[in-house]
């Protein structure tokens, strides 16, 4: 058994070592009754006022009936009996004005003491009110979580975020930065090197207001980039990611000519957005497969699930652990779960009936070979394809190796095996079982998530689905829990009701409202911020926003926009809760861009000193939810954000930050920013306009008092079970129920791509196997593969929400969260199969480096059978902690200690015409690292204050240390 004993307190060595080696510590292997200490009870001492039961071997020890309890001692209440105050807070890390997973957070003497899941009955919403639905198959029941919120450990540990030693306590200014734009005074090359000093809010906001005016005057309003998107705390009025846009949009001649927007592109399902939906029409996300009654269809009809996702992990950031219960139930009712993933992910670990390891992002080869088997054995639904598909013949020709000019030939299992890592015999078995059993595909992660050329595996997977009659009973696309009855009220503060309605979520992530009428005329896609700064001008096709239809992908855009329209390069960045360096495509390149002379001022607001904040000029501290007054909602629940604690240090809410700057700009800006409303006015406005008052029957004052309202479950759920599930209507009548593709059919040859990009060999009209191309050369069997033979698999992290929660000491004690190096530093684990570790002389627990031409990130070796050979797996989002990132050295020599592998992932976008990122499935090598040698070479980096529990310390970056 592979048990990790790291992190144990040092105790009396001899006895504990014995217990450890005997495997007797909590949960260890049995050894036998030989090792005994004090098993024979002594004669018990008499108990005052209690009954004494004489003991003998094997008999129970006495009960001390007089339980020692002092409620009041010397006039003072014992701590266990002190009064507590309770507040409700969401614990979702989604951001975007949405929250979820409410917890009861108790405080004592103004300090948070615990975070526990909300129990609905305790809040006055028992089952008689909620009326939960119930689905049953073969006597196995599935019900929603109506008793308590199925919180995650991230929510339980929430107070550690609030009290992190990494909280920014007051405004900071970089010691060698001055406003005014003079490069000799801006010293942009020192971003990420220089430390910070404390300044006052007054000084900070004065500088910000003046810099805004100066830069807008000198270059034009588009010179200011509002980087306003990303995951963060779920808030409404005080929401991160966008409050600054509510101010900036009033500073120019009109709202769309006031700043440059950063547009959030589909991130985590790129392959589906830019590729898959051209086959399936699952608009707009690419993952929006019809889901009506899908869980019901699975229960009635599905026999086999092919899973490429991790519903035990990915949902943690945003939803509860309900997916876990669904997966257990699916197994109980007899559905086979087969996981096709490079790692035995956290869902596969406990739910898989079979694990088919596949090399990261090489799945296209696997699915092509499966299609080949069906074509050559005539085991596919020809009739369906005749009426439901477009261009199938061309796809079939490609699979059979008959496409002119195709160097790959027939896509046999023997062709596929060395490319995808799945043995030919298992590929054949997969093809047969998929055909013979009613098979549904589950999840959109896997290669579709941030993989190289990820459009192609997603399209090919969808093509395979079509060949077996997508939409037939038991043959649908399923997301765990999809289509289950929901709460009757979908309350959302982030959605605008119409063009003139301001969303109550003031930190509305503007780039999620990308429609032309709202988006600033000049914008940059998030995947190209660094490219835009370093190598302008840029031109591209498709805004890339998750909310746009496929047709948007053909629209041309450029940066900067023409001078006549006010276009200009950006010279200032105002960023809000950022984590670009550790979450996007090419963090090291991004750092280079931040150090460009063109960028005269970087303003960051964030609660914690981490990641992108280290590359700023002015840093403003912001609050967590527990320090605010707000309203919040998620998953049919609404709650007051009240009874909180005082802000930590001098932190302000994101809403307040922009308000303070507005004050410096003048009353007119204060009016325009606030709409003349107080924070509570905004909350009440949200409560009223989003119809909560109608639904709850509570006035604003009553709701404020009550603090929590839960919508009951949909009362009509049982009747709705009759609705056709998934894509059944398309299956039964594709003419009456077309897909949202141009032809209405499953497009094996994409009409859109044929019309707009017919010669794009990186996303051709018929999907292809693309091992490498002009944009990416991450082919393990190609030339770069000789030097970098491993594929890096980088998943949504288990113990974080992207970059959030990296500093929670309790999570960092978990073996798959951090690996303790010999130097005491807690490293981000890099999973290696024993065979790969052995080849490189690496042992479990060693400090290792993962590297390619773009630099190196360190990690702790986690040698395990949970990962296939050929892969180095490290979650993304660990905090950047650069040992060396010297602007005078080539990036290939940069080393990051934190394990932020997005620093070294490919910088270029998904493919020529597809604006996604590649954060996984790229080539690396790993090697043992001599940490002492690095320490000797770069003493300053190692001298930064560090706390093993929480990692980097705020004081490590502030002159004068902790003040």
């Amino acid at each position, binding site marked *: *058994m592979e*048990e990790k004993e790291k*992190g144990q*307190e040092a*105790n009396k060595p001899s006895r504990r070592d014995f*217990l450890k080696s005997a495997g*007797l*510590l*909590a*949960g*260890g292997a*049995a050894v*036998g*009754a030989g090792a005994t*200490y*004090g*098993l*024979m*009870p*002594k004669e018990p*001492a008499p108990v005052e006022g209690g009954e004494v039961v004489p003991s003998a071997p094997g008999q*129970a*020890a006495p*009960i*001390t009936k007089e*339980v020692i309890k002092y409620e009041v001692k010397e006039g003072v209440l014992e*701590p*266990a009996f002190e009064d507590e105050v309770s507040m409700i807070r969401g614990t979702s890390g989604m951001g975007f004005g949405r929250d979820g997973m409410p917890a009861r957070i108790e405080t004592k003497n103004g300090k948070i003491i615990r*975070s*526990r899941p909300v129990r609905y009955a305790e809040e006055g919403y028992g089952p008689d009110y909620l009326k939960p639905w119930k689905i049953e198959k073969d006597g196995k029941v599935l019900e929603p*979580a109506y008793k308590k919120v199925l*919180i995650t450990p991230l929510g*339980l*540990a929430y*107070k550690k975020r609030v009290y992190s030693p990494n909280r920014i306590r007051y405004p900071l200014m970089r010691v060698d930065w001055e406003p005014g734009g003079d490069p000799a005074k801006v010293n942009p090359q020192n971003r990420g090197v220089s430390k910070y000093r404390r300044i006052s809010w007054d000084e900070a906001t004065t500088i910000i207001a003046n810099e805004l005016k100066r830069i807008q005057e000198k270059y034009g309003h588009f010179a200011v980039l509002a980087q306003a998107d990303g995951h963060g705390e779920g808030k409404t009025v005080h929401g991160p990611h966008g409050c600054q846009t509510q101010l900036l949009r009033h500073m120019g001649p009109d709202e769309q000519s006031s700043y440059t927007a950063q547009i959030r592109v589909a991130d985590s399902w790129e392959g589906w957005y830019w590729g898959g939906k051209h086959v399936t029409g699952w608009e707009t996300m690419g993952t929006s497969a019809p889901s009506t009654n899908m869980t019901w269809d699975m229960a009635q009809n599905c026999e086999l699930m092919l899973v490429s996702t991790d519903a*035990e992990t990915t949902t943690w950031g945003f939803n509860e652990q309900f997916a*876990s219960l669904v997966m*257990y139930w699916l197994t109980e009712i007899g559905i086979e779960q087969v996981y096709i993933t490079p790692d*035995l992910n*956290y869902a596969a*670990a406990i739910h898989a009936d079979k*694990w088919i*390891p596949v090399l990261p992002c090489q799945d296209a080869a696997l699915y092509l070979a499966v299609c080949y088997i069906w074509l050559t054995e005539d085991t596919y639904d020809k009739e369906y394809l005749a009426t439901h598909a477009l261009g199938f013949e061309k796809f079939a020709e490609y699979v059979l190796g008959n496409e002119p000019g195709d160097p790959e030939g027939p896509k046999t299992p023997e062709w596929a095996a060395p490319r995808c890592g799945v*043995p030919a*015999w298992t590929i*054949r*078995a997969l093809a047969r*079982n998929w055909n*013979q059993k009613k098979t549904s595909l589950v999840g959109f992660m896997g290669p579709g998530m941030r993989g190289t050329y990820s459009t192609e595996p997603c399209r090919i997977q969808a093509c395979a689905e079509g060949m077996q009659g997508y939409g037939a009973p038991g043959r649908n696309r399923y997301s765990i829990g999809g289509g289950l009855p929901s709460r009757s009220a979908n309350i959302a503060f982030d959605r605008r009701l119409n063009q003139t309605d301001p969303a109550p979520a003031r930190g509305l992530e503007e780039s999620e409202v990308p429609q032309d009428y709202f988006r600033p005329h000049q914008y940059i896609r998030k995947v190209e911020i660094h490219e835009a700064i370093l190598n302008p001008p840029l031109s591209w096709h498709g805004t890339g926003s998750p909310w746009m239809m496929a047709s948007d992908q053909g629209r041309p855009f450029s940066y900067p926009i023409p001078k006549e329209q006010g276009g200009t390069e950006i010279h200032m960045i105002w960023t809000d809760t950022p984590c670009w360096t550790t979450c996007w495509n090419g963090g090291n390149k991004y750092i280079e861009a931040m150090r460009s002379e063109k960028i005269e001022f970087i303003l960051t607001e964030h609660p914690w000193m981490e990641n992108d904040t280290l590359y700023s000029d002015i840093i403003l501290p912001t609050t967590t939810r527990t320090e605010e007054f707000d309203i919040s909602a998620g998953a049919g629940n609404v709650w007051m954000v009240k009874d909180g604690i005082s802000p930590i240090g001098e932190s302000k809410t994101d809403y307040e930050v922009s308000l303070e700057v507005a004050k410096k700009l003048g009353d007119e800006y204060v009016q325009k920013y606030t709409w003349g409303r107080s924070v509570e006015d905004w909350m009440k406005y949200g409560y009223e306009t989003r119809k909560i008052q109608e639904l709850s029957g509570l006035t604003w004052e009553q709701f404020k008092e009550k603090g929590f309202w839960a919508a009951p479950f949909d009362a009509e759920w049982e009747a709705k079970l009759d609705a056709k599930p998934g894509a059944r209507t398309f299956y039964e009548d594709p003419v009456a129920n077309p897909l949202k593709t141009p032809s209405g059919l499953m497009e094996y040859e994409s009409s859109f791509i044929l019309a707009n990009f017919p010669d794009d060999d990186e996303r051709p009209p018929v999907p292809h196997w693309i091992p490498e191309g002009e944009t990416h050369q991450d082919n393990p069997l190609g030339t770069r593969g000789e030097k970098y033979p491993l594929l890096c698999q980088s998943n949504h992290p288990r113990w974080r929400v992207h970059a959030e929660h990296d500093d929670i*000491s*309790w*999570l*960092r*004690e*978990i*073996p*798959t969260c951090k690996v303790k190096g010999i130097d005491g530093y807690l490293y981000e684990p890099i999973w290696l199969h024993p065979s790969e570790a052995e080849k490189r002389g690496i042992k479990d627990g060693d400090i290792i480096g993962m590297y390619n031409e773009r630099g190196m990130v360190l990690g702790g070796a986690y040698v395990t*059978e*949970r990962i296939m050979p050929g892969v180095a797996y490290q979650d993304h989002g660990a905090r950047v902690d650069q040992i060396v990132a010297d602007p005078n050295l080539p990036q290939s020599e940069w080393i990051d200690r934190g394990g932020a592998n997005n620093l070294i992932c490919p910088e270029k976008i998904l493919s020529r015409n597809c604006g996604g990122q590649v954060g996984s499935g790229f080539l690396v090598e790993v090697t043992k690292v001599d940490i002492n040698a690095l320490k000797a070479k770069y003493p300053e980096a190692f001298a930064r204050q560090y706390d093993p*529990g929480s990692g980097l310390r705020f004081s490590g970056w502030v002159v004068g240390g902790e003040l």
Partner: protein
Amino acid sequence: MKVFVVNSNICNGCYNCQIACKDEHCGNDWSPYAKPQPDTGQFWLKQNEYVRGNVPQVKMTYIPVMCQHCENAPCMAACPVRDGIYRREDGMIVINPKTCTGCMSCVDACPYGAIFYNKDLNLAQKCTGCAHLLDKGWTEPRCVDACPTGALQFGEEADFAELFAQGETLHPEYELNTRVHYIGLPKKFIAGTVYDPAVNEVVIGATCTLTGEGETLTLETNHWGDFWFEDLKEGVYSLKIDGVGKSKTIADISTAKDVGLGDVPLE
């Protein structure tokens, strides 16, 4: 009398239990029940994860272990202080933080490693069953409250009679009469995928005969060519596979660890 039930069959390894325990006790003084736990290093409830098998036949089992609140508690017997460690009416065992002298006799006495020494406070510390919360009206401790799947349960012994029939305790040979019942404690497995290298096909319906430790078991490979012999003892086994007119024997398979034989060619 209260008992815990731990069901590893539905423990999803979320670590809510371990973290909820930390949340309740790290940095919180619950005198007279317990002093604060140090921020790291102690695990009054410890989640244990076991990676079992070899690529691609790998499973995981999670087994959370807290103080077993033994009826015949060796810690109580070892404690030299009168009522230094006491048993409540609900059966929870509590170390009295006010009288503990830090002698560590109980730390050494506990065969489950469930007691920890806090060197800053000079105290022995362990799970209290969240006695301070139970006395306030909570019906279950933090770990159980946080568990999303029902893998952890807590309540009156009488209410769990049916579950106890399926369960077992940890190290019953210690005869401590522990009050935590476990379901789903893993035995060993031997698994593999059988294929025919002559045609690169899995072999479905191959007969697999496993002998060892006084038993003979037979399985047929399934629609993936897979066989899984489960619930095996720890020992040595021999496997014979017959299919597609060929035969193969793999001898001396030790189940000290679970075994994934990978892809087994019949040639």
